[in-house]
């Protein structure tokens, strides 16, 4: 490692360490099915930079965050472009039990809920200065993961030149050696772990993603370890019938966990649309926390997360007709008969 690389503040792995770790890894085609508990226990550790899959409240890896919360971690860095419920759940855990679960830093572009409103938990966390923030744009974060996936140290980008974002992040601006005009160089992101929810996987880790890929392929390939939860596991010979539908190749995945409804209450294309009411309820509890009353939120965590043995227990809280409602909504969105 050169002295320069040491000088630059890399979160997660340095490019050299990331390369070395991948080179030394067993990349063979082998059964990677695991319980969520084992996967979280095995691949995530205190202080890690954890990249979160999905985009706002779409395909957020909710089940994986619940398991992380139950396990408890210290001083995590969270990296994502636009985050929604997964970030809320993790940060809410810190707000309630900072001794058990803590986030040190976030590298991100957006944390809120679009049509479902702001995140009161973000306001609570940020306005109390509880987490070190590094703001980027969505393209910045996505391109940083892409640079990691490409094995590069940086990637050039034109946005957002002229903004205040550049004043507090680690991007460098240089004059393009071909045109002489300013261009941003974004440092690559090599997270320690990526957590991703997908629709379909095989036991080796090949993944099919329906709808937006978000930045999931990139973070899977950039991260040292990747934990995938999925709605459905299919045989290898089935998933390889359409190789071009495979969005993440098996050798970028370290654990495959079968978790139906693993992104609930967020949207998972082809399986369920948002549970809007549940998202609203959670935000109402977050708003009460922000206003000084953590009791409701604490009760939510006790019931749904700490008191649950696994994600099945969380899903069991919802009546079948409610789950069917989100399923039916999603079927109306989906463009073909399944």
């Amino acid at each position, binding site marked *: 490692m050169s002295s320069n690389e040491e000088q630059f503040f890399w979160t997660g792995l340095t490019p050299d360490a990331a390369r070395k770790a991948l080179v030394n890894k067993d990349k063979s085609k082998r059964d990677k099915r695991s319980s969520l508990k084992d996967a979280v226990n095995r691949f995530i550790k205190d202080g890690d930079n954890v990249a979160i899959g999905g*985009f*706002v*409240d*779409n395909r957020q890896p909710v089940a994986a965050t619940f398991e992380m919360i139950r396990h408890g971690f210290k001083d995590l860095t969270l990296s994502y472009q*636009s985050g929604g419920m997964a970030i809320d759940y993790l940060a809410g855990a810190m707000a309630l039990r900072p001794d058990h679960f803590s986030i040190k830093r976030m590298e991100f*572009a*957006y*944390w*809120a*809920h*679009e*049509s*479902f*409103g*702001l*995140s009161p938990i*973000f306001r609570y966390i*940020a*306005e*109390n*200065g509880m987490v*070190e*923030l590094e*703001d980027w*744009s*969505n*393209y*910045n974060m*996505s391109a940083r993961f*892409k640079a990691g996936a490409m094995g590069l140290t940086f990637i050039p980008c*034109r*946005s*957002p*030149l*002229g*903004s*205040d*974002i550049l*004043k507090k992040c680690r991007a460098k*601006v240089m004059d393009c050696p071909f045109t002489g*005009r*300013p*261009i*941003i160089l974004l440092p690559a992101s090599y997270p320690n772990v990526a957590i991703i929810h997908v629709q379909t996987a095989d036991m080796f880790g090949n993944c099919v993603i329906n*709808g*937006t890929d*978000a*930045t*999931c*392929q*990139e973070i899977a390939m950039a991260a040292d370890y990747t934990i995938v939860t999925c709605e459905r596991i299919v045989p290898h010979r089935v998933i390889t019938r359409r190789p071009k539908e495979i969005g993440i190749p098996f050798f970028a995945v370290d654990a495959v966990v079968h978790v139906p409804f693993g992104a609930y209450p967020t*949207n998972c*294309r*082809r399986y369920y*649309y*948002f549970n809007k009411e549940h998202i609203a309820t959670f935000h109402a509890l977050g708003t009460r926390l922000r206003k000084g009353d953590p009791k409701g939120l604490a009760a939510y965590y006790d019931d749904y997360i700490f008191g649950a043995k696994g994600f099945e227990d969380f899903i069991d809280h919802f009546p079948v007709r409610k789950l069917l409602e989100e399923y039916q909504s999603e079927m*109306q*969105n*989906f*463009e073909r008969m399944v």
Partner: protein
Amino acid sequence: MLVTSIEYTSQEMIVVAGARILEDNKVVFVGTGLPMIATVLAIRHRAHGIIPVFEAGAVGPPLEGGLPFSVGDSRTASRASFVRGLNAAFEMTQRGFCDYGFVGGAEIDPYGNLNSTMMGKFPEEYQKPKARLPGSGGASDMASSCERTILIMPHERRRFNEKINYVTSPGYLDGSPGARERAGLLGQGPHRVITTKAVLGFDDETRRMKILHTYAGETVESIQESTGFELLVDPDVSPFDPPTIEELTLIREEIDPLGFFVKKPVKEKVLPNQF
């Protein structure tokens, strides 16, 4: 001669104005919230050829189903002409495929710079701001690389400031000639600002915001009154037609029948966040 009379909300007005400003057959990179609703209205009403691009990766979906709740949700992907992820969407924008970016913010300055990051002193209070907003998302990318941008803002004095707390999405920066080009930006910058009171543009020379059209019930004075900096006034300033029954019917009966996104006159409902 008979005259109809129908109540409408300022939210309905802003959506209608947004929809009317959009040019048919153009590629529009659509931000979340009101821009999304205005785009759907435009497509269903008179500009069927608009090609929406969503930052989560969908290009040109017909949006025939319900209104998406997110620019990355299932409804944006169905029957689209291309679906990948965020990198693909922003790469094509940086290349020049997006004629317009349609984006909201929380605070704006006379040069069309937007803030959706924080309220408070920057950089001193960055790590502990007075009020923390969601952050850029794709807004600053749109503002940087779409050829033109259309900004959509609730018109409140506290949101229109000579100096904003934080520049998330670059407009004309300090307004000096060639400021965007000097900074290395590609797009031409803000084209229109659509608010709950007026449609505004920018002066070609000073790059400062100017009133182009006033909504019914508003005057140049009332608009200036709700603005925290001095507005220019276009010599040809003109009134902007109120929503038509057809537009209102489309919003209320087809696009947002439950009133989830757009306030209706009768039943008051909390404004969903627009960032």
